[in-house]
């Protein structure tokens, strides 16, 4: 059974033995050594055997662990026994062997360490090897001393491997799945041993323990399954962090469970076989020690694994408690029955970690692989693009780089908060959706399709939100594995941040990979530049250069797409850039934190743009980008609105573009004047729009995070709303362009140059709208826009921050609903705590809702050929919204939600003298009867038998 591989190990072991004093066991002097050590049978041989066993186990690990381990153990035992013919002696021998091996506690450690150095793979098997070897001896040997020794030895051995595990973690981290297999195999061995015992050993006690062991083995699964189900989140997190951490660190915590397991199985049999209370106690104590050791290890590793801590500690503590309880029981009963409880408890302790690991691995595998591929493809694509395109677009890239830098800074900051993490994760899935959307766009360039695709993507997002935690972890894992971050083995939060950054990367990577365009080259060049600057500016950002670079990618992609358009129209682009830079500066000042959404949105936009670029319709592509950005920012409402309203292509585009651009009249006019071609015109607005749009989203994010700049962000949101409103009005009106221009004029009048960046943005974006209108509808050009342009030109980027603050106040009054009112109502309905950062989101929702509501009501009124919206319209709306149905009349809702005075107005009530208070205007007889009927119900409260009152009504009616 000795494979040729064993030679090296043997040599090593013998070396060590020679070096060590032969009496080491005595030196260790922990316990049993004197009695058993004298055996002359040749310690070297036994050592060699041990080595053999370990070696074989090693091999077994490499191959199929279960079968090989089983065979090797049995065969080894037989071989060792061959000298002594009797079974009893046979069984004794292995125990003795173990004893000697274990007795010399010091020597085995050194041996193990050496072995570890040679092959880290060994460690897990070592654990297993010790207990199974012991399995037989206790059953066969009724001798209390020998048993004690064996047990104690096992405990010692177990403790040792735990120490080793820490050092060996590298190898072990990889093997986890195998390990689980090994464990199962080990369990099988235990079962076999138990069976053997039952057959061979005549002791009644043996039977009970075996059954108990089996029970223990199987029953724990349920509990473990529950545990894992409950605790899933934590383990995942642990794993991810572990991966990101140095693998060694990972291995440490992972190992501890194994140690527990190894200790526990060793303990399982001894109690069953030995009715001796002392031995049991000793074993238990040893196990307790072992358990404590891993805990210590965990403590050492805490830095990276701080999150994991709680759970681990729980397991350990719980396990220890169980052991203690078991020990107490044993002491009290000191009988065979007690063995059952301890065994069960131990078994519970054994399996819980494994299950969790297995589940983790199963769950987390999918995503990382996908990530990897994407990353690789992305890298390859990037390299190619770099080689080909670096030289061509240098100028534009440089110009863009500045903006990119600013954005990158803002992006990098965002990663500090946890909410950002969530966003990043969401982003992970978004790219896929984005890809789909791009593909769909390519297939059919119709807007509805694109909108649907985007909706799907966001739906995915929403779905993903529930699973974010898992996904996040998986994403982190994937990133870590893909890039082999080990070089920067940062611990704890830094790791988390990195992982996040990496997560964001793959998304970008994917997007880029799909884009076989020039973008990649510029991105990297820009990234480098951007990375340097942000670091200098922001200490926090500097800590995570990678994150910054990655964060830069999306923005760069955006700008790259823009850059393409820029190459076409450099003259227009220059002006746009200047403005963009100013905006970017304002961003930097604001220290916008959130990029995650921007990242997601931007890659999508880039993809869409690229996909569409292949087609001749560049303007539409850019429009799409803008649209997507907007959608991301204002998720649902816009899409639905578009999908509903935007049946006609040109109209919808026109509508959306203004929303996106929000009115950059200057650029639009420039584009019109400078470039006569439609493409150039559209491209210029798109350029303007893309850089500007990220701002609102970022600021919205800030609001969500409650960074304290709610007011500014809020203003931005409001501005966007205003822009939307303007657009809608324009759409609704006959000459939308004119309306927009009028509004812009109004704003311009209101605004001094210093006042608002928002106003600048609005005029900037309007041109796109105007242009498109022009293009599609061939409508009038805006002279007013020129006027606005002048205003904007006067307003400098420097004045932006101050202006923002001012505008904040002003815009607050224009909030969709007053904050106090909205929040109080919402809190009343929520019936739970509501964080303060809800308001911007809520405001956003209400804005969309009210827009839709008003539109619907107007539609209803128009359909009825009325110019006034009446109660019936609202009632119909409520019915269509599902609030009113056959089971829920309006009156109930009114009584439930409205105050008494309102109710009095809405619900007619019969008062004394048979007078209905809100007069019912149209009272044709049947209607009158109906009302009487209803009010009589009110009047005779509680009596619902209308039949009874029917004659009465008739009488009334007749009178």
């Amino acid at each position, binding site marked *: 059974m000795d494979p040729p591989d064993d030679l090296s190990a043997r040599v090593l072991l013998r070396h060590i033995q020679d070096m060590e004093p032969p009496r080491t066991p005595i030196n260790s002097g922990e316990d049993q050594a004197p009695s058993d050590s004298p055996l002359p049978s040749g310690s070297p041989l036994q050592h060699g055997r041990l080595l053999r066993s370990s070696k074989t186990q090693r091999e077994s690990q490499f191959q199929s662990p279960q079968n090989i381990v089983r065979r090797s153990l049995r065969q080894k035992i037989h071989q060792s026994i061959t000298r002594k013919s009797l079974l009893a002696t046979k069984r004794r021998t292995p125990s003795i062997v173990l004893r000697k091996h274990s007795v010399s506690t010091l020597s085995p450690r050194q041996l193990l360490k050496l072995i570890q150095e040679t092959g880290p793979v060994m460690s897990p098997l070592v654990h297993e090897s010790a207990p199974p070897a012991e399995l037989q001896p206790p059953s066969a040997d009724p001798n209390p001393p020998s048993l004690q020794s064996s047990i104690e030895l096992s405990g010692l051995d177990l403790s040792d491997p735990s120490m080793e595990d820490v050092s060996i973690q590298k190898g072990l981290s990889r093997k986890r799945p195998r390990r689980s297999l090994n464990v199962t195999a080990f369990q099988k061995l235990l079962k076999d041993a138990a069976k053997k015992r039952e057959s061979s050993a005549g002791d009644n006690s043996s039977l009970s323990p075996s059954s108990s062991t089996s029970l223990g083995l199987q029953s724990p699964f349920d509990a473990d399954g529950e545990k894992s189900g409950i605790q899933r989140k934590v383990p995942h997190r642990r794993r991810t962090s572990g991966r990101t951490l140095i693998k060694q660190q990972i291995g440490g915590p992972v190992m501890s469970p194994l140690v527990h397991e190894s200790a526990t199985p060793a303990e399982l049999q001894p109690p069953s076989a030995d009715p001796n209370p002392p031995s049991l106690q000793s074993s238990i104590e040893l196990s307790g020690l072992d358990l404590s050791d891993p805990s210590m290890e965990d403590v050492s590793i805490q830095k990276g694994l701080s999150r994991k801590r709680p759970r681990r500690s729980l397991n350990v503590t719980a396990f220890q408690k169980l052991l203690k309880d078991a020990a107490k029981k044993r002491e009290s009963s000191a009988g065979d029955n007690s063995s059952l409880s301890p065994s069960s408890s131990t078994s519970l302790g054994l399996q819980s970690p494994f299950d969790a690991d297995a589940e983790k691995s199963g769950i987390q595998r999918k995503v990382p692989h996908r990530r990897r591929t994407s990353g690789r493809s992305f890298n390859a694509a990037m390299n190619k693009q770099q080689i080909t395109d670096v030289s061509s677009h240098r100028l534009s890239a440089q110009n863009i780089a500045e903006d990119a830098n600013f954005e990158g800074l803002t992006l990098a900051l965002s990663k500090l908060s946890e909410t950002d993490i*969530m966003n990043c994760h969401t982003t992970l899935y978004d790219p896929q959706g984005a890809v789909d959307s791009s593909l769909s766009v390519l297939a059919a360039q119709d807007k509805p399709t694109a909108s649907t695709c985007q*909706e799907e993507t*966001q739906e995915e997002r*929403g779905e993903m*939100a*529930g699973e974010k935690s898992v996904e996040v972890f998986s994403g982190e894992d994937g990133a870590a594995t893909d890039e082999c971050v080990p070089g920067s083995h940062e611990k704890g939060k830094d790791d988390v941040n990195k992982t996040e950054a990496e997560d964001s990367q793959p998304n970008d990577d994917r997007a880029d990979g799909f884009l076989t365009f020039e973008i990649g080259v510029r991105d990297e060049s820009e990234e480098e530049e951007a990375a340097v600057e942000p670091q200098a500016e922001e200490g926090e950002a500097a800590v995570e250069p990678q994150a910054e670079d990655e964060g830069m990618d999306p923005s760069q992609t955006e700008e790259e797409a823009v850059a393409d358009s820029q190459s076409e129209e450099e003259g227009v682009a220059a002006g746009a850039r200047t403005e963009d830079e100013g905006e970017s500066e304002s961003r930097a000042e604001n220290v916008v934190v959130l990029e995650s959404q921007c990242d997601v949105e931007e890659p999508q936009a880039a993809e869409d743009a690229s996909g569409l670029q292949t087609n001749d319709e560049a303007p539409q592509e850019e429009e799409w980008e803008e649209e997507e950005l907007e959608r991301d920012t204002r*998720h*649902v409402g816009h899409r*639905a609105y578009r999908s*509903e309203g935007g049946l006609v292509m040109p109209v919808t585009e026109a509508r959306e573009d203004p929303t996106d651009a929000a009115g950059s009249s200057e650029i639009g006019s420039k584009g019109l004047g400078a470039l006569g071609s439609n493409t150039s015109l559209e491209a210029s607005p798109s350029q303007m729009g893309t850089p500007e749009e990220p701002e609102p989203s970022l600021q919205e994010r800030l609001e*969500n995070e409650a960074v304290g700049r709610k007011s500014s962000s809020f203003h931005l949101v409001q501005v966007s709303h205003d822009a939307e*409103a303007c657009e809608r009005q324009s759409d*609704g009106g006959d000459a939308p362009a004119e309306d927009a221009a009028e509004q812009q004029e109004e704003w311009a009048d209101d605004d001094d140059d210093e006042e608002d960046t928002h106003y600048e943005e609005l005029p900037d974006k309007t041109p796109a709208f105007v242009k498109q209108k022009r293009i599609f509808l061939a409508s009038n050009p805006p002279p007013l826009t020129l006027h606005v342009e002048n205003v904007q030109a006067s307003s400098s980027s420097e004045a932006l921050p101050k202006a923002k603050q001012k505008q904040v106040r002003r815009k607050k009054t224009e909030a969709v*609903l007053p904050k106090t*009112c*909205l929040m109080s*109502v*919402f809190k009343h*309905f*929520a*019936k*739970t*705590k*509501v*964080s303060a*950062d*809800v308001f*911007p*989101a*809520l405001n956003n*929702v*209400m804005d*969309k*809702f*009210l827009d*839709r*509501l*008003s539109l619907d*009501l*107007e*539609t*209803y*009124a128009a359909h009825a050929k009325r110019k*006034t*919206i*009446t*109660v019936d319209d*609202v009632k119909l*709306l*409520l019915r*269509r*919204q599902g*609030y009113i149905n056959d089971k829920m009349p*309006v009156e109930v809702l*009114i009584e439930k*939600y*409205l105050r008494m005075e*309102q109710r009095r*107005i*809405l619900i007619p009530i019969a008062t004394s003298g048979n007078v209905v208070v809100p007069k019912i205007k149209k009272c044709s007889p049947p209607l009158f009867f109906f009302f009487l009927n209803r009010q009589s119900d009110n009047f005779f409260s509680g009596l619902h038998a209308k039949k009874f009152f029917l004659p009465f009504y008739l009488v009334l009616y007749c009178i």
Partner: protein
Amino acid sequence: EDVRVVEATLKGRKNRRVGNRATLKIELAVLLFLNSLAEEARVKAFEEKSATIRAQHINAVTKKMLKRARG
């Protein structure tokens, strides 16, 4: 005051006149929407095991609610 608020907001948004009682009902519609939104957000928050409703919860629910609110 809510009525006034709703009225004001609606005036900004509507080109058509709104009946006197219709504003009340519109307010009712707004309240109903807010109520349902709050409920959904609360459910979402509990799904994510947080006792407080955060912006992310509302954002997650927004789409569904707006879809439901289609007239």
